[in-house]
């Protein structure tokens, strides 16, 4: 009898607790992708620092991956709820321009950002970090790492590589663009056709692919040049390496911008300035595992294992926006024949 009473009590407590919910007002609303604002991402660190600096309250909303966030902003365009969108990558950029979402702002700190990262000449969006996609390998299993996209076709890698699907993931899409940039529109499908036997799986997202890699299912995975730095920093191991390719690496830049219709333009500009300041930039390497656009201080020691590779030829964003559907269509048809 006693144990029964004991079990009813927590039930009641839970039922009561269901209906308690905290709410508060905020002075600036930021939309960002989920992993940016996860416990391990930069969000908790940098947002807290900004709240301290401005003595104001932020509302951070992370409705999913960066594609979902952009979706949400576009859907809300008539009645904007957010002041800032943080975390848009280069392949989504043109899409956002076509919907005319932005309130341009040129931060005084932008001067310090290397010129080639300042891709938007109209300053609708401001870059905050960048990285390169790369094939990361387990050096205990792969002694002579591949050093070009072509090398990956070697039969010795048969079913040893995992990549992400361009149709559902951003590194996957970057990989598709990478091959188009390197081999051209005439030959990229040919390359993929030859690559296919070496792919064990083409996953829906980075998480599954990288999970398969760290669990020992494959020795090579499509990830970022900065991935090995995590393992050095937290696991004190150098066994995971990024293969440096002669053809160069495809670059992903992440941007943030002020959304049209904001009623807090001053605060929003303050945030963009803050984003380029050391308080934000210094947190990027060890939380977002990307390169900061301004190096206010030297990179952490673990980044010695993250090479700054040669840049691959890049695709014109307007062309990407125009051709993407066609490329994806061609890709899926070629690969599933």
């Amino acid at each position, binding site marked *: 009898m006693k144990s029964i009473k004991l079990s009813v009590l927590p039930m009641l407590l839970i039922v009561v607790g269901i209906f308690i919910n905290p709410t508060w007002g905020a002075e600036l609303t930021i939309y960002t992708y989920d992993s940016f604002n996860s416990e*391990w991402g930069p969000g908790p660190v940098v947002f*807290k620092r900004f709240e301290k600096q401005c003595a104001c309250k932020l509302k951070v909303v992370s409705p999913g991956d960066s*594609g979902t966030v952009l979706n949400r902003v576009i859907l809300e365009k008539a009645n904007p709820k957010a002041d800032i969108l943080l975390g848009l990558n280069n392949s989504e950029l043109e899409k956002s321009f076509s919907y005319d979402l932005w309130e341009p702002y040129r931060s005084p700190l932008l001067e310090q950002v290397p010129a080639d990262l300042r891709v938007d000449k109209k300053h609708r969006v401001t870059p905050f970090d960048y990285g390169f996609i790369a094939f990361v390998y387990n050096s205990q299993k792969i002694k002579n790492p591949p050093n070009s996209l072509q090398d990956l076709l070697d039969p010795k890698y048969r079913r040893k590589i995992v990549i992400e*699907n361009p149709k559902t993931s951003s590194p996957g899409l970057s990989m598709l663009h990478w091959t188009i940039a390197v081999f051209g529109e005439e030959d990229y499908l040919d390359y993929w056709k030859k690559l296919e036997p070496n792919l064990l799986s083409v996953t829906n997202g980075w998480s*599954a692919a990288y999970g398969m890699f760290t*669990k020992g299912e494959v020795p090579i995975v499509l990830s970022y040049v900065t991935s090995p730095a995590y393992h050095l920093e937290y*696991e004190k*191991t150098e066994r995971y390496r990024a293969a440096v390719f002669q053809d160069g690496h495809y670059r992903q830049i992440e941007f943030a911008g002020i959304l049209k219709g904001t009623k807090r333009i001053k605060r929003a500009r303050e945030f963009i300035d803050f984003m380029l300041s050391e308080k934000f930039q210094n947190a990027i390497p060890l939380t977002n*595992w990307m390169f900061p656009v301004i190096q206010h201080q030297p990179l952490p020691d673990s980044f010695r294992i993250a090479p700054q590779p040669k840049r691959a030829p890049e695709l014109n964003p307007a062309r990407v926006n125009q051709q993407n559907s066609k490329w994806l269509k061609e890709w899926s*048809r070629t690969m599933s024949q």
Partner: protein
Amino acid sequence: MKPHPLRLLQISALLLLGAGFYWPLLSFLSGNNPLHPEESFLQWKFFKEFLSDPWNLRVIGFSLYQAFLSALLSILVGLPGAWLLTYYNFPGKRWFRLLTYLPFILPSILVVLAMVLFYGNNGWINRGLMTILGTDEPQVHFLYSLTGILIAHVFYNFPLAMKIIGDQWERISLKYHHAASSLGVGNMRRFFGITLPLLMPSIGSAFVLIFLLCMNSFAIILVLGGGIRYTTIEVLIYQLARIELDFSGAASLAFLQGGLSLIGMAIMLKGRDRRVDQESASKSWLPEKLRNRSMKAWFGLCWILLVLIFALGPLFAILMDSFRKFEHGEWIYTWYWYSELFTWRENNYFLSSLWNSLRIGLGSALISSISGLGLVSIIAYRKGVKRRFWEMLTLFPIALSTVVFGVAWFHFYQGHLAGTVPLIFVVMAMHALLTCPYWIRIVLPTLESIPLQWHTESKMLGKQPLEYGVRILWPWLSKTFLIAFFFSFSLSLGELNSTMMIADETVRTLPLEIYGAISGYRFSYASAVAVILLILSVSTFLLVEQSIGFFGRLK
């Protein structure tokens, strides 16, 4: 006339379904495309173009094919389990039942990784075989093919089949059994001639549910199918909605997918016209039958062992992974990740996520049960077209892709609810809408196993509906209710897709925590969170079960 108390339940359930699902969906789809205000949303042109491309037709064909096969196999694996649970008791039976439900609670990323850890080329089975045979090459290729997709789908779904079918099996009267025996009918013929036809309603119910689930499957198809050869409609929907930002296309495709599922269901959901005498079968004690060398009992034991390995292996692999940490060049086993979970630090979201998951899960399971009861009472004992109409109406929420459901709901939320209703209730309602169809499918066959005469007789005897409910229905159905409740709760715990769109930090839940940890490279931490999620749902089940027993004794 005094209204029947059920009337109120029915009306509120229909209101929830109508105002919470159909209205948002239809008002979103009939409106203009938010991205291109001059265009209407659903365009016939899109359908025409899509369906005239043979490649797309192949994708549709494969989606249906794999869902059909998965449902069929899940039932074939679940059927012996249903038989076993009907005729035998064995030590740990309750736990066995409980443990096989656990895969449903895990977010898909962890199901995928669990399958890789266990069945993968470098997974436990293959590593075991490689050690025994002394080779370096994986011996069995389970995954990265259609087989991989099917293994994962069966792993996920067979407990559902086992539950739904077993529940009805237990109620088939032994009279039929004895009559058949006395006529000298053999076991096989008795099974196919009598038992199987009597089980058809529940087999149909399970088949439809599993079919729908597999139609909407996404991560499993891509990762475990190898990702290239196998594409389904759901993958295309995702591509259009997330990568190409073509909502109109995504919604049209989701409709096509939902429609196809409904047609499939219409074929499978046959009307139930057979009513039979029912009473609980008596159960034998398995260990005793084993000692008596009963062939059947030994078959049952083999089935249990195989299923334990098949279903619990991957979960066990996740458990082990949660204790692993790579340090200074080797894997060590440690409590590290668990201590991380419970140590206080400024950004520790774990405890608040745990709390959110728990209350959203319980709240939505409660709503789902209440509205499920209302809807079940509308469907039960109906026949023909009317029945099919109601069944489809209640099933459509899970036939529709969650990607589109999320977007439509978001639109609705922003327009009507934002700022007035606390987000947490909105999330509960959304989860309830998604879990209610399961609740209905689980309860319906058992409810209908109650002979209709009972209802009419009790009315003639002048019993109040409430008294009838408490005295007669509740004892008959309480176990089923409990399982349906637990199932809704578990599904809500693992649910992520549909709520992401409207969620903010006030409703951060455990699956989000898992994804967050993984994108921050902390895979083992994610496994630890998953283990907590599993423990949470098991203990909730036990708690609810106890309380039901308690209230049962009260009256």
